[in-house]
């Protein structure tokens, strides 16, 4: 069995940033395990720009953004293995992995950082009626085919779901000469970023139909048409609103699911809201020494936040290893409670003993709020009230909590984050 101080599962943006920061914190033996043939993860197929505005104050493409972190990993001579699939993680941090040169092997890790990212929800999960022919892709699969393999799935496209990858692919397919006829979104609001709706749909005259879904798929061998209908508040199709669109491609952007099969196998507690691990302020899961960051933890909109979060996971894993793999909790844990429109918080618990000077709490809301405020309560006392013009499910929100405020508050048991309408 091999031994490493930190094993990082996944060499995408989260894994790379975690590795770099763990090395900065002084950890020598770090190993990144990456299943694909190169580092960089999903960024390799995101050839559009708009990455890095927060981190580097410039607009980079996905591969350029990834390269900045790959360069750090190479400079710091951090070990990594490509084509390597992690098969199992045990609760005592033994990682079993496999590739075609080493075969199947085991590593005892001081700390494990989960950075496996997420997968796309497939059409099967929607239980859409109709045929199941060729020509139906999740948007990310189509993105890989177009941008990395160099092939176009088709020329007449309908997109179901308005997640960011779907919006990006609406533009991408258009630039490649395809006709994107419509984007249908079952919810009354888009799941994507406002800027993507403007830059990828509006600028190209692609209609976005909110509260609409696909109710029939035609074509036994290859898709030939879909029927779209308006849905009511119960998300059920309204009879009489059906419209038929001929198409040779249906792309889906209907949600991303953190890929936590390995985490579950290890016994990590998973939130049924985020589908990611339940973590504390150190981004540590329910298993001591197992940390999580990036889209495996909760789905992010911006990779900049993934990098920032992953760097913290890397530092915290380094602290854990440096302390002899011991928990440094002091005193009572403080629960973070999402309420009144806030669906979840990451982290969900804070221990002041382990806490740095501050902790960023990220969350999403369950509906669109206009002229509302994000409020934070320490026990029953409101300590923060940030007014916002608009808060929507498609954009991740955050509040920053300071350690001295937390420790100065007497008998602090819970911190509640809620949306308040004035």
């Amino acid at each position, binding site marked *: 069995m091999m031994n490493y101080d930190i094993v990082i599962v996944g060499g995408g943006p989260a894994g790379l940033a975690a590795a770099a920061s763990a090395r900065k914190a002084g950890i020598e033996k770090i190993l990144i395990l990456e*299943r694909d043939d190169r580092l960089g993860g999903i960024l390799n197929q995101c050839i559009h720009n708009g990455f890095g505005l927060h981190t580097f104050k410039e607009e980079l493409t996905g591969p350029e953004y990834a390269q900045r972190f790959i360069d750090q990993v190479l400079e710091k001579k951090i070990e990594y293995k490509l*084509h390597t*699939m992690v*098969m199992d993680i045990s609760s005592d941090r033994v990682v079993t992995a*496999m*590739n*075609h*040169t*080493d*075969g*199947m092997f085991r590593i005892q890790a001081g700390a494990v950082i989960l950075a496996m990212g997420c*997968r*796309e929800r*497939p*059409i*099967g*999960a929607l*239980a*859409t*009626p*109709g*045929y*199941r*022919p*060729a*020509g139906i*892709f*999740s948007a*990310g*699969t189509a993105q*890989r*085919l*177009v*941008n*990395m*393999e*160099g*092939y*176009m*799935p*088709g*020329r007449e496209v309908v997109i179901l779901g308005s997640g960011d990858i779907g919006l990006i692919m609406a533009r991408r397919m258009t630039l*490649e*000469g395809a006709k994107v006829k419509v984007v249908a979104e079952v919810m009354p609001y888009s799941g994507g970023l406002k800027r993507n709706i403007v830059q990828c749909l509006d600028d190209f005259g692609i209609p976005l139909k909110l509260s609409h879904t696909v*109710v*029939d*798929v*035609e074509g*036994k*061998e*290859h898709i030939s048409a879909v029927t779209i209908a308006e849905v009511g508040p119960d998300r059920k*199709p309204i009879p009489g609103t059906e419209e038929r669109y001929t198409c*040779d491609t249906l792309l889906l952007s209907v949600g991303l699911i953190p890929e936590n*099969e390995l985490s*579950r196998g290890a016994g990590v507690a998973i939130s049924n809201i985020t589908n990611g691990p339940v973590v504390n302020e150190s981004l540590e899961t329910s298993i001591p020494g197992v940390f999580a960051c990036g889209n495996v933890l909760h789905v992010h909109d911006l990779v900049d936040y993934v990098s920032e979060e992953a760097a913290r996971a890397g530092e915290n894993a380094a602290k854990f290893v440096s302390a002899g793999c011991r928990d440094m909790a002091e005193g009572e844990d403080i629960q973070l409670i999402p309420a009144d429109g806030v669906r979840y918080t990451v982290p969900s618990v804070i221990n002041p003993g382990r806490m740095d000077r501050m902790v960023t709490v990220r969350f999403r809301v369950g509906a669109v709020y206009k002229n509302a405020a994000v409020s934070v309560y320490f026990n029953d006392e409101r300590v923060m009230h940030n007014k916002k013009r608009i808060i929507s499910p498609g954009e991740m929100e955050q509040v920053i909590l300071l350690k001295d405020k937390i420790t100065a508050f007497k008998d602090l048991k819970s911190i509640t984050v809620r949306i308040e309408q004035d």
Partner: protein
Amino acid sequence: MIYDVIIIGAGVTGCAIARELSRYQAEVCVLERDEDVCCGTSKANSAIVHAGYDCMPGSVMAKMNVRGNEMMDQIAKDLDVPFKRNGSLVVCIDKDSLGGLRELYDRGIANGVKGMRLLSREEALAMEPNISDQTEGALYAPTAGIICPFRLTIGFAENANKNGVDFRFNTDVEELKKDAEGIWHIRTNNGEYKTRAIVNAAGVYADTFHNMVSENKIHITPRRGDYFIMDKDMGNFVTRTIFPQPTAHGKGILVAPTVHGNLLAGPTAIDIDDRESTATTQQGLDAILDGAESHVKNLPIRRKVIRVFAGLRAHEDHHDFILGECDDCPDFFDAAGIESPGLSASPAIGEYMSGLISSRYHFAKKDSWDPVSKGVLDPKQLTMEERNELIRRNPAYGNIVCRCESVSEGEILDAIHRPLGARSLDGIKRRTRAGMGRCQAGFCTPKQMDILHRELGIPYEKITKMGGESYIVRERSKGGEDR
């Protein structure tokens, strides 16, 4: 050449007959309109090996079901087919209907089903805690099983092929004519085939072929069954196959684990006209959601579904299998009306039909016949040491292509290069399970395309999901030529 027997249809029935006929010194060929075996009803059903209490005593169905069930252990062993006798429960939720359970039990006894027991409410709930709280009693049949229908069909076909049976794919039979010498001339889109005897195993089209040659018309209705298949984390929701009490229209909406650990709910029973229409409908899917709720509780179908699909049963008006030589047309043998329990009965149908045909034409047994065919090697069954040895010999087994089902490149190469190997994504899927998991081939589609292109020389634009026009990509993207 003139074949001794040509079988129309490479579903589980046609392939089972082909495999049994391969014991004899006869030239046998299977004609299949699709690109692969197992492309019709055989690929889209409940994947159940029924015990045999449903069928009417004295029916051909009853005999074939019970015999097929008995034969399945040996078949599964010989052909390396995942099969498990998980048992089944027919759940009664209405005191007034308990008599119906008794009736089923009596039918089972008459049919020769072994080991059945009538259970009290308490016994049933102790066995399966997730069945309905309204349960009043249940019929337990320990001989019922779950099986991989793809591997069963493929196993029959591969073993038949190994023992000398020819297969012709993408070959659609258009016309059947007998000449003055009594030789059949079969016109297809791929030329003419000649044979002494024809076996009609054409599923929902079996009446079309029968009625081409016989005045005693039969009539098949495609009876559609919609299904939900759920994530593998639901595979332990029930251990046994759970049925409601049957109605005139069928065995009802069952809830069953699959032999690979998913959970299945379905089917509906909707009579349709179009023999190609395997599209699910909202109405059908809703009927499953409602139907499953009657005999199991708190089944989170909507939250756990990974795919919906529909298959067509070949329902003949008289609701029995039609097996044997056509009364008014010698040398034409029907295996028609093969609806449920056709999968369970397939080994018996193969045995019965080949017995009939071989004695009719005095086929002699071959000196050597190999009943065994190994399926695609599954490294997950190996120890770590064995797996490492395998990877040392063939590094492709160390490269995972389908992450959800943990399928390696080695398995996919095996599926492609074995006799009657896979030529499409669905062909690979049915042989290895690659793409059958929770991401539904989102990640592995491009990788599988690379492998099909590299191994079979198929241009990317010609790679299909399931043959025909089911192309995955249409053309190069701009600048894609440089890649």
